[in-house]
């Protein structure tokens, strides 16, 4: 205790712990710790993070399109939706967006203009979006932690969320699903095959979607 107070005196500290101004006040503060593992994502520059978020959103959009034509579970989930339903995911304030519409019974990616969206899921900032895309948190945790907000009818948003969960179950590895879903989905053999086919279709799909 006494040595601490001596130190603070010699470092020009006031009793409250605030460094006094003047040349004798040079204190060496410990450096902020370098982020480790996936946390490095968050120390990237904004344009890089925004680019990653855009690719992740496009992957979700492409996955949605593909699965709405090929996955029975998703087909059933969206069968009760009205034709023309438009929903979107967007990163506030200047981040990327993807807008999807139900057309001819399937989901179609229609670009990034939010104007006609009935439901928009907003990420409050780019880091919150990356946490979800990197599989660090699930959609319900993002909601519970106020990292996302919904504009539009909550009932419709719940329907879209269920569909989005189905799409995500084909986009993430099982280990991530175990961590991020309330109840991790179990894919049958034929669903695993569908997942593999989706993975093959993903890259060209993202490249095509990026041109829209």
């Amino acid at each position, binding site marked *: 205790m006494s040595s601490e107070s001596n130190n603070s005196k010699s470092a020009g500290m006031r009793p409250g712990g605030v460094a006094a101004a003047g040349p004798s006040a040079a204190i060496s503060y410990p450096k902020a710790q370098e982020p480790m593992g996936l946390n490095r994502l968050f120390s990237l520059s904004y344009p890089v993070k925004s680019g990653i978020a855009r690719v992740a959103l496009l992957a979700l959009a492409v996955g949605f399109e593909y699965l709405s034509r090929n996955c029975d579970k998703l087909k059933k989930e969206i069968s009760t939706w009205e034709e023309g339903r438009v929903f979107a995911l967007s990163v506030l304030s200047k981040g990327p967006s993807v807008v999807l519409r139900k057309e001819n019974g399937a989901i179609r990616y229609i670009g990034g203009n939010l104007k006609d969206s009935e439901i928009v899921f907003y990420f409050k900032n780019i880091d919150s979006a990356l946490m979800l895309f990197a599989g660090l948190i699930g959609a319900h945790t993002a909601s519970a932690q*106020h990292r996302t907000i919904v*504009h539009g009818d*909550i*009932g419709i948003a*719940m329907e879209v969320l269920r569909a989005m969960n189905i799409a995500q179950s084909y986009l993430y590895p099982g280990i991530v699903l175990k961590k991020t879903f309330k109840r991790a989905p179990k894919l049958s053999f034929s669903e695993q095959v569908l997942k593999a086919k989706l993975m093959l279709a993903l890259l060209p799909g993202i490249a095509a979607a990026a041109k829209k």
Partner: protein
Amino acid sequence: MKSDFYEFFCPVKVISGKQALSNLPHEMDQLNVKRALVVTDKGVAGAGLISYVQDAFQGSFCEIGHIFDETPPDSSNMVVNQVAELFRQKNCDCFVAVGGGSCIDTAKGANIVVTEQTDDLMKFRGAERLKKAMKPLLVVPTTAGTGSEVTLVAVISNVQAGVKMAFTSDRLYPNVAILDPKMTMTMPPKITAATGMDALTHAIEAYYCLQKNPISDSLAITAIKLAMGNLVKCVENGKDESARLAMANSSLIAGMAFSNSMVGVVHALAHATGGVCHVPHGVANAILLPFGMENNLAKKACEIGELAPYLCGREIQGDDRAKAGAAIQAVRNLNKKLNQLSGLPNRLRDAGVTEDKLEAIAKVAVNDGALIYNPEEVTFEEALEILRRAF
């Protein structure tokens, strides 16, 4: 007490105690408003409570611009639009809600319509989409249940669709909440029991749902202690002033807790039961609460078990499961007691729900936003199963 990340907000000034209502004009003055639109309902007005409010204005420069006493149970989007129109016509500058959740939420909804200068509340459905500063809202609750006087939520019926809509925004918090025991003393025993169980449900769900945090945890426990110590007393003797004030506080504190940790499957099912079969919110919650707690046992036995001493009034021996089981049994015992004292229904069939409606309720429930915050996943089939057990 796991809380990796949380937000907590409650900007409401609380005034609680005997004759607290007399402070209403002073609080209006502090908010720089003078002319109130009082939003109430026929039951509250019929109980003579609006005359207390009128008395409170005597000797002040503030006045009542108009009294709207046509609020229906669970409010409605149409009535909200109508109240907003009255606010403009009568040149009012603030809302004073005097009533239960139905009146408070009507005032919140009308405030959205007035502030956003729209003609239709429905355009503002969703979360966190209100940006403009709202008109001041002062609340005098006359039930002890919803806690709406300190929450960011307005629950309003969409009459055409038969669903209850939730609007949430930090802007929806009232400015002032006034708890005066004389305002709840006229509540009949059955409404006292039902609304009290709503408060208890808020506290219990807040304690184990996904947004729980250290602040909401302490509020939830205080609310549970107050409810367990006073709800039965209020039902047995409605004139017990100190029990009434304690229940008003329990409801308010539970409201602060759940506004920041949200509620789960019990509320999702209760909202749907209210929307489809018009069962009063508190009645539906009371019936469904033990079943909702059971639904979360696999994931939240520890948290539910932590509530056992407060719900049972004594320490419970054993592991988490044993403690959680005792907590759930304590809720069932309380329901039984309230049934004996006031006729509060203990099964959905006794609350006017018919078996053929259960599927429709489950269908609405899985689209209720509260389900997001329930720790356990709940599918349509599981929601239906809970309803069948509660039937």
